[in-house]
């Protein structure tokens, strides 16, 4: 049946998207715009117009988060909203988890390309739901609600909101499922599905959706939260149009995006240096002894090599050429997730405070190699925990840009990277006693939102206060997390010594928590973080990477008896060699150097320790000021043995004054000894080259490492050529996996 097209000037929305893409390609500007007419003609009106929409979106988010029930959303604001053009390009965004602004853009474009205008049709009042990583999302746990906005008969835009769920009905309870290896383990999938009309969510959808997850109440209220925010945005657009006129709105939306694109170019020219930037990061996924499905039982380390080329015109390209392969694991990323990660970091490094929109997306050329973890090209793989690769991989972008910022003189902007947004402890159980007996509880502590940031070239890194995907990072209150994970109350949250990356300026520090299982049965516990490799691309200019994670779990404990006798119990693991767990507990105590573990079963009074991440350091640690080291010791950020071996500082604790005293003479001698050791234990480059090359040619690599090289060499001719040339290997050299 004939239906009038919903695009402008009798065009279909698909035709509008095609025209937009053609103009960007041909004219190298958004929608082929040559001049920012509105800004030039009346800058005050233009800026006021932008600010009014920005304010409306921030307001929508602040209001909507109180509609939600999920503590992740209400406590730390794990949601964001954005306004899009009819073609799906973001014009203006709220605060919050901005990594999702571009992901929703891809979702809208998917619907347009798939012909949703004809079937299932796009009408005023329709509601669409998306959480499919193949359509722009990061992982199924991030759920997007999108509504079209019409003015008379024309589609004039979309409002989108995303929240992060506690649970998505996957293979295990949790939000980032490390045991997922295929699409069918990832939980419920909504592939841009229409779920409502006339501004109401359909009843059959809600019934079905609530049965598909383990946290139905949170699901329902989070859906209402996203819809409420979107409707507020739609109202704000109508007020805008009534005030400024529809023609102004149509011109405004496109010029605001073009201005966003131009701002990136201008900032690049203002702050960086043209040239080639490179860094690499890695992530471990030790599944050989853990995975349930035979084909997933391999140990894996991912290669995340990044090259950024800043061009003479201020544009730049970003490539992950050389990345290792995707596979039967949860860490695969689709392009939408990669775009989101790139976009959110750009908004933090270069374009904060200005027109933050998809202009940043259009300013960058991207290469996510097909077959790699960054673009596996297989929709049936799992995309449940792409953060496992995405988060460490994008430390390289921060580091690359920091080289340029440093050379340009903006040392205060240098940040070599950030800590992994883990320790992502997860799982859940069923209450076996108390008023909630028989009900489920979910372990989804989102204090992962407060990690250590890397040091800059002029100061130490931010402690416990950074998440790459949410510029408003907040680790939240223990009491709030306990509201929904009452089966695992905290015994402590305490500063964890030795988490920051060492350096003249140390990275940000962080906390560790200790918690125990209470009043529960059928408890599953798992976690995700790096453990066998350092997170990200490490420090800069002589700074070291931040410490890795490990697992510490005590089972068969006498904690119940300790409580009854009011005795001391462990509240930290300051020295993993000689810890409080051993001192205070009778228990089976397990410490393993692995951060990512498959689910295990826990019983009441079992205890877990989990440590959040520090940030990487900057500069030679021997150049750190004595008073800064003293402060680190006084605040418990480092222990005296590490301070001595890394910083060359000898200190004694003054029990009377409750502070550390630096022994200047002993420290001078200690630093001299470290310098002497540097001379004695270092190799010339030629000696180093021989030493390393033998590891490759004499087959001395561990299987995860040889697998990584094998995959990267097969997937990339460019990276492979440079690898072979560097080590003077035959042109046809390939790596065999032992």
């Amino acid at each position: 049946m004939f239906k009038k097209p919903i695009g402008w000037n009798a065009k279909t929305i698909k035709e509008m998207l095609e025209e937009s893409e053609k103009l960007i390609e041909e004219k190298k500007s958004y929608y082929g715009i040559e001049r920012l007419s509105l800004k030039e003609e009346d800058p005050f009106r233009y800026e006021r117009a932008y600010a009014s929409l920005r304010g409306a979106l921030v307001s929508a988010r602040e209001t909507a988060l109180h509609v939600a029930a999920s503590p992740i959303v209400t406590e730390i604001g794990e949601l964001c909203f954005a306004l899009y053009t009819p073609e799906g390009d973001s014009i203006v965004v709220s605060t919050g988890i901005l990594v999702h602004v571009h992901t929703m853009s891809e979702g809208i474009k998917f619907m347009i390309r798939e012909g949703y205008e004809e079937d299932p049709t796009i009408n005023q009042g329709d509601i669409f739901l998306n959480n499919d990583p193949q359509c722009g999302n990061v992982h199924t746990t991030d759920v997007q609600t999108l509504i079209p906005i019409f003015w008379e008969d024309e589609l004039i835009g979309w409002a989108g909101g995303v929240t992060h769920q506690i649970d998505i009905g996957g293979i295990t309870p949790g939000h980032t499922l490390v045991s997922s290896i295929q699409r069918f383990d990832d939980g419920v999938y909504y592939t841009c599905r229409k779920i409502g009309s006339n501004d109401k969510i359909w009843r059959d959808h809600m019934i079905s959706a609530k049965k598909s997850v383990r946290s139905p109440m949170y699901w329902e209220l989070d859906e209402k939260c996203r819809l409420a925010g979107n409707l507020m945005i739609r109202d704000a657009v109508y007020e805008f149009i009534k005030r400024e006129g529809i023609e102004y709105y149509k011109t405004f939306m496109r010029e605001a995006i073009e201005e966003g694109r131009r701002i990136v170019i201008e900032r690049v020219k203002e702050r960086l240096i043209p040239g080639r930037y490179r860094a690499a990061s890695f992530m471990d996924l030790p599944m050989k002894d853990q995975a349930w499905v035979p084909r997933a039982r391999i140990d894996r380390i991912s290669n995340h090599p990044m090259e950024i080329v800043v061009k003479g015109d201020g544009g730049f390209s970003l490539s992950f050429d050389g990345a290792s392969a995707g596979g039967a694991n949860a860490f695969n990323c689709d392009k939408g997730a990669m775009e989101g990660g790139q976009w959110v970091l750009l908004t933090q490094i270069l374009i904060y405070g200005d027109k933050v929109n998809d202009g940043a997306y259009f300013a960058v050329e991207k290469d996510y190699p097909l077959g790699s973890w960054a673009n596996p090209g297989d929709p049936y793989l799992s995309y449940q925990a792409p953060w496992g690769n995405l988060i460490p991989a994008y430390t390289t972008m921060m580091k690359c840009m920091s080289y340029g910022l440093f050379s340009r003189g903006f040392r205060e902007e240098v940040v070599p990277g950030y800590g992994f947004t883990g320790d992502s402890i997860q799982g859940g159980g069923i209450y076996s006693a108390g008023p909630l007996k028989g009900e489920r509880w979910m372990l989804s502590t989102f204090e992962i939102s407060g990690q250590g940031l890397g040091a800059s070239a002029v100061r130490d890194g931010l402690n416990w206060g950074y998440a790459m995907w949410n510029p408003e990072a907040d680790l939240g209150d223990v009491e709030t997390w306990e509201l929904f994970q009452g089966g695992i109350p905290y015994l402590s949250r305490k500063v964890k010594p030795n988490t920051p990356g060492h350096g003249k300026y140390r990275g940000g520090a962080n906390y560790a928590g200790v918690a125990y299982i209470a009043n529960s049965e059928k408890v599953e516990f798992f976690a995700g973080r790096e453990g066998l490799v350092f997170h990200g691309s490490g420090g800069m200019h002589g700074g070291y990477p931040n410490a890795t994670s490990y697992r510490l779990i005590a089972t068969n404990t006498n904690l119940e008896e300790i409580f009854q006798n009011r005795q001391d119990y462990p509240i930290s693991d300051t020295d993993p060699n000689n810890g409080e767990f051993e001192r205070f507990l009778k228990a089976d105590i397990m410490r393993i150097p692995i951060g990512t573990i498959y689910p295990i079963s826990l019983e009441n009074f079992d205890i877990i320790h989990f440590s959040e991440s520090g940030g990487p350091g900057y500069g030679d640690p021997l150049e750190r000021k004595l008073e800064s080291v003293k402060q680190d010791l006084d605040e418990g950020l480092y222990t005296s043995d590490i301070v001595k071996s890394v910083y060359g500082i000898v200190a004694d604790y003054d029990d009377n004054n409750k502070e550390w005293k630096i022994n200047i003479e002993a420290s001078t001698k200690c630093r001299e000894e470290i310098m002497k050791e540097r001379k004695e234990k270092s190799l010339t480059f030629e000696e180093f080259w021989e030493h390393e090359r033998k590891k490759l040619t004499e087959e001395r690599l561990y299987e995860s490492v040889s697998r990584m090289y094998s995959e990267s060499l097969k997937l990339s001719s460019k990276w492979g050529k440079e690898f072979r040339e560097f080590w003077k290997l035959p042109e046809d050299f390939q790596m065999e996996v032992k």
Partner: protein
Amino acid sequence: MDVDKKTLERMIEGNLKWDELKPIISGRKDQNRFDKIMEILQEKVKFDEKILLPLHEHLYIVAKEGQRIVKCDCGYEFGDYKINWKTKCRIRVRDSIDSIEELYPKFMGSDPKWEELREYFCPKCFTLLDVEAVPPGYPTIFNFLPDIDTFYEKWLGRNPPDKE
């Protein structure tokens, strides 16, 4: 905001308090920052060669006898800036558990079978210039190769100091 030279000198030395540093981070950037920093650094280094670009806390690309070379503030010359300066360093490879546990508590460092630490030192002053955390056998990473001529000519609108 316009940050004066004295403040920038104190910033480089790490002596700014947070309430002094915060406005510099969050404010609009001074458009002549590069020139001010170059002036400070040229006065600070003990060598006479003209700095073309600060590359690192201790390394500079300088003009010397018609060449562009990387030079450490201790005076050591690493050679052509187009060749990775790390290939002229002294390098300590920490590829054993014991050597990694000198820097990190047990369980809080990498497993050397999966990833090693490489410390790159200046061959003269033995300042630690870079640390790489990479799997065994990974090629040395060439972090930054600037396009000096494009920077000066197209972005700053003048010739590089060695072509003036």
